[in-house]
């Protein structure tokens, strides 16, 4: 039973990459759909549309980041993987903020991004502002990233 620690820890890492990655994939997809419509009308806006499309893509990267830190902490990428079930569950819990908030915020951010493409279409001069609306959503992904990261670092130092 004691061996299950690593299973839960890896589950946590996988969830972080899964949730955030899946959210970003959906989000960037949404952006791409709306963006290609806009580019059909005005190909010159491709660069700016691309920026808006990519904004919800960062959650996937944060998920990868959390997954990677977890993997290297629990010794899956080389080293010893010797810890109990409690610690494994702690790693799992630490990964959850990134997994869940990453998924939800990526999609919410993508919706804001799509709406911002409307600004870009009708008021191209207001691009600076159009970028800010999706960026507001990202704050919460960053906060989740922060908590997940600090938790993983903290858990690694615990001796249980």
């Amino acid at each position, binding site marked *: 039973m004691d061996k299950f620690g690593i299973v839960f820890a890896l589950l946590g890492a996988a969830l972080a990459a899964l949730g955030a990655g899946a959210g970003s994939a959906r989000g960037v997809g949404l952006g791409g759909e709306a963006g290609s419509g806009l580019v059909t009308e005005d190909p010159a806006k491709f660069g700016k549309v691309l920026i808006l499309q*990519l904004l919800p893509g*960062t959650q996937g990267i*944060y998920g990868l980041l959390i997954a990677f830190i977890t993997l290297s902490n629990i010794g899956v990428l080389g080293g010893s993987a010797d810890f109990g079930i409690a610690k494994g569950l702690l790693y799992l819990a630490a990964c959850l903020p990134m997994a869940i908030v990453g998924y939800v915020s990526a999609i919410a951010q993508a919706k804001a991004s799509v709406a911002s493409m409307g600004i870009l279409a009708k008021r191209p001069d207001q691009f600076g502002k159009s*970028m800010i609306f999706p960026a507001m959503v990202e704050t919460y992904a960053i906060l989740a990233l*922060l908590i997940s990261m*600090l938790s993983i670092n903290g858990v690694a130092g615990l001796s249980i």
Partner: protein
Amino acid sequence: MAMLQMQRISIYALKKDRKPVLELLQRRGVLEISDSIAEDQVFQKMDVSQVRSSFERNINVAKEASQILSSYVSEQKSILSSFEGRKIISLDEYSNFNSKLDDTLRIANQIINCNKGIAEGRADILKLEAQIEMLKPWTNLDIPLNFEGTKQTKCFIGTFPKEYSLELLYQELAEYMPLNIDIISASKEQTCVFILVTNSLQEKVYEKLRSLEFSHPSVSVDKAPAEQLEKYSNRVSRIQEEILSLESKIEAFASNREDLLFLQDYERMRSDKYQVLGQISQSNNIFIITGYIPERETKALREELEHKFMLSVEIETPTEEEDIPVLLKNNPFSGAVESVVEGFALPAKGEIDPTAVVSCFYYVLFGIMLADAGYGIIMTVACGYILYKYRRTMEVNTKKFMSMFLYCGISTTFWGIMFGSYFGDVFDVIATTYFGVTNVPIIPPLWFFPVNDPMRMLAFSMILGLIHIITGYLIKVFQLYQQKDYIGIFYDAVSWILLIISCTILLMSLDMIKNILGLTLVIPSSIKMLSGIIAILSALIIILTNGRESRNPFKRFLKGAYALYGITGILSDVLSYSRLLALGLASGIIGNVINKMAAMPAKSFGFVGVIIFIIILLFGHTLNIAINALGAYVHTNRLQYVEFFGKFYSGGGRSFNPFTMKTKYYKVKENVNNG
């Protein structure tokens, strides 16, 4: 921190000088035309819509022609050419173009006509090819398809929708002998036949044929199919030749491409000129131009105008009520981020231009978010190269944008060295993989590794955030001072600064916070007491004064209390700077992941492994730099717009939009050789 002082200018000139004066103003491009004089019986405005629409028509013709031209003769363009900016031509070339105008327009129309001819020719070929396709099965028939028969016989020429052999057909029609059947061609889809019967039997045969799903050919020609086919293919090749000659005719115009582009610019300038002409007030003999001009340009423009023409220039300081346009003016270092400020909004009346302050923080924040010496050097070198290569022709806005990233790159390099990140940990990975070094890191960070000590990095990010936010309040102090709202300075800005600082000190003295941040500093209890008192006092001031526009004391208190609730906003603002840590770590750790992935196959595959190593590194780091530079750009903007501007800046100024040469391909410069 500067906006150019604007002056109101009025030019009174003789109508005969109208054209040269306007052209001079357009070339100088320092004057924004505004029509402030109402029409009356003496001064009237011209209707220019008709003239302008003829210019617009010419622009469209030239545009279409140059598009057609580039679809036939593609232009040699390098990837970097978008940085090149407009081509510079001299004033002489500009004025000489008038004589070439009609020629160029004629060429444009010729190109369009040629293109039309090509399109029509292609359509004809398609039509002919369809007919050829239909005639092909009949090639072996040596009489026309509409041959009816002789005096004594009836002829059926047509198809069956499946394959028949001669034998089978004779069997089917055996009872109607004598007849003659020839199979012209046969395939699975259809059998083309020629059947000759005597007149007396023709109806019965026809009935029988119908029951076998016989149908007449869909094409009907007077000539034998083979002959007709030849005629068709001759016609196709003739049209093809025609198309080729039209194409080469278009290609021959390639040397006129520049003229076509310039024609668009030329007509655009004329159109703009006429638009202004429609705005200015004119009497029978004189005309008046009014507008805004940056003060530093007034002297030169006045001297030049008065020297060249008979006119009078009047310059006055605009009144407070006027809607004065805004033009920012900063040194090159700060000016580079003007586009960031303009992207939010230009300063409204009574606000200062925050560009200089924004620029300092911008470079620092961007650098911390990307924080990699390798990426920083790449950015710096790339931007520097582009800036140097196109230094003569580059557009002002592109130049600003590139120099912004140049400074951001320098800052990124600096913070990368501080935090010991060089393409992630590429040196360590190379050293351990190929040289068996165990003593990593090879280049230790100048300060510390954020990955190993994230709490320290978090604390640093938030301190930077506090400094940024307090700077915002300080600018507010300055702004209120300029507006002479001295009470506001104390109530709306200073009280908040005191509250933020004292609360920070109080928080720092809490054991919990100290533990989280790993701080060891001991704050003396006297300072703790003092900051506690200051915190309470400033909170009281905020509660009592921030609702001072309300007369009802109860309402005023509630408003003040609500304003104090804004401290939570400041808390979240400070927390928001944790993105410095998050994004900084993200770019660093993803770089590490790439290096690790590259190192995995490197050991096992020997020499091939080295190549794989290099490919993964190149691809991975290109991706990482692109994504993280984008992230750093967006989030630096966000920190400026939301956390920083939120404290003092709302913007809303109108941008200075001078009457100038708004061209797309060329810019006219006087004295090209000197400048």
